[in-house]
């Protein structure tokens, strides 16, 4: 029981620590959900491996404030992302949009998987065309 209380206490601390954004929630829950989605996809440029949702750097604070302001003005998500890309480049977004500059980024995984599959295919084909030795052949026949 005591252990349970300890764990529960620790979990409470964790949930508290995760709430970096101390600002008041939007009154409209849909708007709040959009806001949270956006800030979890924007990189904090000062602390590059954190989103601005997770960072308490003051730059993250400023960016959250700007995003909040834009959402209150009724801007769309795309307009908010545009605003950030114009100022900080595609690097500011955790999911950079597909464009000439980011094409390599998006296509590289497909190209690498394709290349790997091609190599695997060739290796398998070559092995299949090798003369099968007697022992293997006898097994094949027994199974057929």
């Amino acid at each position, binding site marked *: 029981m005591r252990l349970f209380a300890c764990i529960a206490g620790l979990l409470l601390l964790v949930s508290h620590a995760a709430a970096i954004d101390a600002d008041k929630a939007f009154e409209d829950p849909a708007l709040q959900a959009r806001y949270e989605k956006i800030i979890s996809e924007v990189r904090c440029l*000062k602390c*590059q491996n954190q989103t601005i949702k997770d960072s308490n750097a003051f730059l993250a604070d*400023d960016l959250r404030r700007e995003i909040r302001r834009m959402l209150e003005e009724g801007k769309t998500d795309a307009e908010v992302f545009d605003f950030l890309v*114009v*100022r900080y480049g595609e690097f500011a977004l955790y999911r950079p949009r597909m464009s000439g500059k980011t094409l390599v980024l998006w296509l590289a995984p497909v190209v690498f998987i394709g290349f790997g599959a091609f190599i695997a295919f060739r290796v398998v084909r070559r092995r299949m065309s090798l003369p099968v030795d007697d022992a293997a052949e006898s097994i094949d026949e027994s199974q057929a």
Partner: protein
Amino acid sequence: MTRYVVPIVVFLIMIAVFMIGLNKDPTILPSPYIGKSAPAFDLPRLEDPARRVSNADFGGQVVLVNVWATWCVGCRQEHGFLLELASSGTVPIYGLNWRDRREDAQQWLLQLGDPYVASGYDGDGTAGIDWGVYGAPETFLISADGTVIYKYLGPLNRQVWDQEFVPRLSAQAGDPT
């Protein structure tokens, strides 16, 4: 033969790519404004909130816009060089006092000297965002027609100036577009 050569060559290319990648500083991000017109700069002046300083003040000259703050260690390091540069009259320097306390910033300029033609006061960082600032000090080189030519991240000094700014400045002087 190719059986061994191809994987070795591929391996060496990968090593080369990773070596280059590892030696790059990931904290230095290129400014998306390079080659585009400078973002709007219209702020109350640091020393006198009633007056403003804006892009219009650049007056068709090549200028530096230096982002600084009193909490920024690099800014203190480069301050001596900025004073030297200002007194040499090479290029006018405009300050963007970013995320600072006005009294602290005024005090700083009184104590250490003021290299700036004028400093804009950006207490809440809005202008900083417009300029894509993510860490002070940052220095933008703006051409006579208001295009961002170059952005340097980190404290300026004589060596950086000679290497990065002087060639770009002389290109500007030779090509008055």
